[in-house]
């Protein structure tokens, strides 16, 4: 269904408005490989939207060049170029006088597709964004904000463009629906693999959405261009460090899942087992008290001294095994669970509920030192993400 994504390259791009001393975009060079999401992020007035709008010639570049799949955009007529580039803006800009179906069909019709193909494409996209086919005949004012935003994305995808430009696409949506739309979009992208330039002022959104993040600072200067993990681990300047926030260690945890880190090895035991065997296992474990499990390997609780006093393990717990975390949990959530239960340790379960290891605060601290390239991001993170 999808045409090949295009690579994008900005080469020393400059935008200077007449009558101003400072350029709006200053010598910006970026390379975005085909199929990746590149987020432009920075404070207001940093030129991120200007930089994005130069890609489809909504703003003309003063100097430098922009290459789409190796060809300069300046050699294309603006209208023709734009039909090949999906365009989503914060205000969405649906045509209020056209039905949803007609709104989605704008670019296919401009491209001269025949009626049947346009109609099929509209149906396909409505399904893709999860809207009922009957919505086709409605007008934008009859839809909710979230539905309008989905239609905006569908409209941008309609011509099957190899590149999409998205300017704060979820900026006007309330936080709960925003998160839902972000997740939906990442799942969509995992399937479509478009090249995307995504503009936001929100560093959390940038970290969540981006395969690569370009942090811009005032005057349109590139402060850092790196993967989310790299950005959080090694901010190159005080500006970037300040911009990503004092909680950047916690933000890194948001990029990792429990399965990504080195878990501690616990000593598992069952009721009636020889305590000598359990002691032998304890010597080999990272934790000095054993975890009692049932016949299926599900955790019952932390065993007390008395439980280990005799020849055989007795069911005598010092505490229940709360909380338990799952392999697919986001590290940040898992840490929060430990803190909420005022405990240092929690058993990690697989999807059958069997203990696979122990998550401890020290293991989490250790995880923050892992190499950034081992941390998945963007679409990679969404593939295993469940709807929140």
């Amino acid at each position, binding site marked *: 269904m999808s045409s090949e994504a295009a690579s994008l390259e900005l080469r020393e791009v400059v935008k200077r408005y007449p009558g101003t001393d400072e350029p709006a975009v200053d010598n910006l060079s970026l390379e975005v490989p085909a199929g990746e999401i590149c987020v432009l992020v920075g404070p207001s007035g940093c030129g991120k939207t200007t930089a994005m709008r130069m890609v489809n010639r909504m703003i003309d570049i003063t100097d430098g060049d922009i290459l789409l799949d190796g060809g300069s955009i300046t050699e294309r007529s*603006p209208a023709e170029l*734009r039909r090949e580039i999906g*365009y989503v803006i914060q205000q969405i800009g649906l*045509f209020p*006088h056209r039905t949803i179906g007609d709104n989605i069909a*704008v670019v296919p019709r401009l491209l001269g597709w025949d009626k049947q193909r346009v109609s099929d494409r509209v149906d396909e996209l409505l399904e893709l964004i999860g809207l009922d086919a009957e919505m086709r005949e409605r007008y934008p004012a009859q839809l909710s904000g979230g539905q309008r935003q989905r239609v905006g994305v569908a409209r941008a995808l309609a011509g099957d463009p190899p590149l999409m430009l998205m300017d704060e696409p979820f900026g006007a949506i309330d936080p709960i629906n925003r998160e839902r739309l972000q997740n939906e979009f990442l799942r969509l992208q995992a399937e479509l693999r478009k090249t995307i330039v995504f503009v936001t002022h929100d560093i959390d959104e940038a970290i969540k959405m981006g395969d690569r993040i370009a942090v811009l600072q005032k005057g349109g200067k590139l402060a850092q261009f790196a993967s989310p993990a790299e950005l959080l681990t090694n901010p190159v300047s005080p500006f970037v460090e300040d911009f990503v926030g004092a909680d950047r260690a916690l933000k890194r945890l948001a990029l990792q899942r429990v399965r990504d880190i080195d878990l501690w090895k616990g000593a598992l035991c069952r009721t009636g087992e020889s305590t000598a065997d359990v002691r032998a296992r304890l010597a080999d474990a990272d934790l000095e008290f054993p975890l009692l499990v049932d016949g299926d390997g599900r955790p019952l609780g932390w065993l007390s001294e008395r439980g280990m006093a005799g020849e055989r393990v007795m069911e005598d717990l010092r505490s229940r095994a709360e909380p338990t975390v799952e392999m697919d949990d986001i590290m940040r959530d898992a840490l929060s669970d430990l803190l909420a239960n005022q405990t240092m340790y929690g058993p990690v379960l697989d999807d059958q509920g069997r203990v696979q290891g122990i998550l401890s605060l020290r293991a989490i601290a250790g995880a923050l030192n892992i190499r950034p390239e081992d941390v998945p991001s963007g679409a990679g993170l969404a593939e295993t993400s469940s709807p929140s």
Partner: protein
Amino acid sequence: MSQAAVLAQAPEGFFTQRDPEDLDCVAQNGFCPSWIVENFDRYVDPFFQHVYLTLVSLIIGFAIAFTLGLLAHRQRWLAGPLTAMTSVLYTIPSIALFLMLLPLTGRGNTTALIALVAYTQLIIFRNVVNGLRQVPPDIVDAAEGMGLTPMQTLLRVEVPMALPEILAGLRIAASTIVGLATLAFFAGAGGLGAEIAAQINFKSNVVVAGGLAVLLAAGLDLAVLGIQRALMPWRRAVAA
């Protein structure tokens, strides 16, 4: 003898009167229903002449003002001079304009139409420009960003969205022109105004001629409203 004198001065239609009571009513320039019924024919031609003057000047006037409005929207520097020009046209007293044109274009429809078209300009032009200006910029941005050419954006997005304002201008212009066309007889173009002026003291005459003008204005207003509803299904859908 005295009756003969009245007869001599009375309009032609007077001779059709037989009922003495009516005779009395007409003699007193009163409101005489039966006279109206019997003399209605004499208003048909002036009425259609009035319709002709109104419709032709509205169509020509709309075509010119709409084009000027689009031009002023695309070339922003034209908006000022064009607004000034149409405003000047609008401020010339109407009778003066009819009389001023007489030496140039002579008596007749041409003179009347030129003057009437001139009066439509400010109203329609201003509403076209304002309507286009009120289209939300993000919608225009989205249209251009998707690859509509500037002309496609104008005709497929901006004009449809400005329609309520544009048609509101057309409605005001229509009722204004129906009124002004009653003065067209100064330019020798007839119309209902000629009938009113011919017997301005005769109540029956003034009521019928004036009433027809009012009906024409109301009818045109409803017609434009109908066009508006037909052209803007999205407004109905949202209200429903």
